[in-house]
């Protein structure tokens, strides 16, 4: 299960998004922003990949699963996601 750490505040302007976590403010890219949104209430990895492809389309090159796994690991390393079990 993948879950977004509590987002304190969100700010959007001109297609750009900022997310404020308790100890940091980030400007995520489109994939990371979508993951943070979709995982707000917790989501399984396979469902997250499907939801991301539905929202953003399939990646131009490479595997969607690999791309999402890398992104989830990076966000988790920064404390923005919690991951229970194998992310995928």
């Amino acid at each position: 299960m993948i879950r977004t750490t509590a987002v304190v505040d969100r700010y959007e302007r001109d297609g750009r998004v900022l997310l404020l976590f308790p100890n940091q403010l980030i400007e995520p890219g489109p994939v990371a922003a979508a993951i943070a949104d979709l995982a707000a209430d917790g989501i399984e990895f396979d469902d997250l990949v499907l939801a991301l492809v539905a929202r953003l389309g399939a990646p131009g090159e490479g595997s969607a699963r690999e791309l999402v796994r890398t992104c989830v690991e990076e966000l988790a390393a920064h404390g923005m996601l919690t991951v229970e079990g194998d992310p995928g």
Partner: protein
Amino acid sequence: METIEVFGLGVRTTIGITGEDPGTLADAVRHAWTRCLEPRGGERDGPAIVVGIDSSAAGPPEPAAAGRTGRDSRQVVDTDIARLMPRLTQAVTTASITEQSGSLLMIHAGAVTNPETRATFAYAAPGGTGKTTLSTLLGRQWCYVTDETVAVTDDGGVIAYEKPLSTRMAADVPKGAPRFKSELSPDDLRLRILPREGRIHLAGLALIVRDDHVRQPVVEELDTLTAMVCLAPETSSLSRLPTPLTRLADLLDSIAPVVRITYAEAADIEPIISAVLRGDS
């Protein structure tokens, strides 16, 4: 026990003087905090901090303890007055920031004001990277507001914190300064006095980055969202404000474009900030 009230960041802090030679310590506190002894109005009551010299204290504090926040920092004891004074300043600052958490937008920055227009320029940077040096330089031409924390109200007003300046380099200590030279009063440094009446407001903000390798200052204009991301690490308790990101964006939209200035010497940066304070286009 003798007490001294100091006012800064919109907070009244009561300092209780105890320990050995309390008269000397009280004089040192009044001298260093001379610009903070009178209220500016509207201060909220903050904590009491008890401070004292105790020659039997078990040496200087561990670094981690010196930086500790919260109730532990409300009693400050040391064997040595020169070491005690900056610790007191740190304790007052921490307590005042804690008191205003959730109310004021607080940025780790120094600031000076144009006394005629009340326009205030803040320069944000992590601790130990040039805020005090720049405040010492700019404060001779413009009015000293703070070298530590700029507190901004929800309508863009700035609340002064004219604290003592921690000067570690002997070369910075002016002739005739008292022996508590690690902690200098703005008077010791002949910094201009901020008028007591009238509201001051934030007019400009820079993120300052020291780099000995640059020959001339490099000035980069930041769009509001980029400035928010760069500035966030230099804020206190941002996430405790109501709608913090809207508040920060509104503030940055209301002032001159935020700039990042990479510089080697404080003297190089002074004309850039002075131009904004003069209102030069």
